[in-house]
């Protein structure tokens, strides 16, 4: 994109992108730590995730403030306006994803009070696609990459499939032995939060779609364009 005549405007828009990229990096690290704390039964790591969540909340506030400032002082239009609006939405969604990571850390603490349980090994597998979705959705935002955004959008159905399969495993374990009900319940909650991370990442992809095309996201448009990837 050609630069603005007013350099400070470009710097502010870049800062907006930088803040969101940083939010994304921190959030991915939070997710990794939360899952790791379950697998390693590491209470300290789980508590770290819970306390670090505040950092991401504060970053969201900074994005809000900067976006509001740009709207008031620069009166952005066209692609600039759509970028600022997308930033507000995306930072809100990333903040929500970080909340899910903190939730998973809380279930981690609950699990650690129970005997170790082999079904926890399913979580690192289940989290893989949602992590890729966050990462790719934010790259799609930064590079205004429509194809990547659409690709991310389609990844969510895979997450839903894996989530359902994992639930089946947990139900089977509960039926096999009532002692499993307690840990399985915690894992069920954790898995639900992972599934929600996929949904939120899909929402980011939708925000990127609107930012690039200027049109509200509609699933029927994807089919029409034949842009299924």
């Amino acid at each position, binding site marked *: *994109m*050609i*630069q*603005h*005549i*007013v350099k400070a*405007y470009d710097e502010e828009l870049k800062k907006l992108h930088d803040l969101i990229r940083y939010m994304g990096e921190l959030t991915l690290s939070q997710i990794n730590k939360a899952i790791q704390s379950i697998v390693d039964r590491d209470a300290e790591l789980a508590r770290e995730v819970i306390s670090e969540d505040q950092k991401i909340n504060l970053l969201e506030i900074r994005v809000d403030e900067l976006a509001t400032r740009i709207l008031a002082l620069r*009166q*952005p*239009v*066209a*692609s*600039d*306006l*759509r970028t600022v609006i997308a930033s507000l939405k995306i930072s809100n969604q990333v903040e929500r994803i970080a909340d899910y990571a903190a939730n998973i850390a809380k279930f981690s603490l609950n699990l650690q009070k129970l005997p170790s349980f082999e079904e926890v090994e399913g979580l690192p597998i289940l989290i893989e696609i949602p992590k890729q979705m966050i990462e790719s959705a934010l790259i799609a935002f930064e590079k205004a990459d429509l194809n990547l955004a659409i690709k991310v959008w389609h990844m969510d159905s895979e997450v839903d499939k894996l989530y359902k399969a994992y639930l089946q495993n947990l139900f089977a374990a509960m039926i096999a032995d009532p002692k499993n009900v307690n840990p399985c319940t915690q894992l069920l909650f954790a898995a639900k939060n992972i599934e929600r991370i996929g949904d939120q990442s899909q929402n980011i992809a939708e925000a990127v779609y609107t930012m690039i*095309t*200027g*049109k509200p996201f509609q699933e029927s448009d994807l089919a029409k364009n034949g842009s299924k990837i």
Partner: protein
Amino acid sequence: MAFKIDVQNLNLFYGEKQALFNVSLGLPASQTTALIGPSGCGKSSFLRCLNRMNDVVPNLHLEGKVLLDGKDIYDPSVDVVDLRSHVGMVFQKPNPFPRSIYENVAYGPRIHRLFKDKSALDQIVEKSLTRAGLWDEVKDRLQQAATRLSGGQQQRLCIARAIAVNPKVILMDEPCSALDPIATAKIEELIDELREKFTLVIVTHNLQQAARISQKTAFFHSGYLVEAGETGELFTTPKDERTQGYITGRYG
């Protein structure tokens, strides 16, 4: 969509130099159309073609059609004075005549003989000043010199003068560029009210103003009409990269 003015394939030359290239643009009735673009892009030239203000320019040559209610205003049978009673104009700097407030508004109706007696003229003056949002401020001093009004009041007086002859279309060339924000807001509010009765065309360098007051926006560049469309759409999702560059401040 009914166009009050329909410009078709307009080419404008100042001597050898071509100022407008094959411009076709419809101006919808009861809407404000904003013309935007960098200096020298042809937007003011275009505006001046709409009431033949360019006629006095030497070596001017024009091709194409400008239809007002379906009738070509460049047809030899058209009386230019009559045309200008249908297509009024408001300029960048307020330019009241060095006469009283009353006489400024009464001037047009007088030369076009639009009234029967003095009381009918009084009514036209009051109605025009009221429509221009100026009546309450000047009703007790109608005989005072118009030049003693503030800049914003003078501009509203010029608008009252333009609407006194009950035109179909009002052209405005940067009508707020010499005014402070409060006076500008009053003119913008006025433009929005006037559009119910008149078709308005405004040239402005203030893009936010174009976005605020117009329903249709046309972007000119180097004598070409690059893009025209619904204002909300043009300012959120312009189709042409040159439009995008200009309105976002990336124009180089």
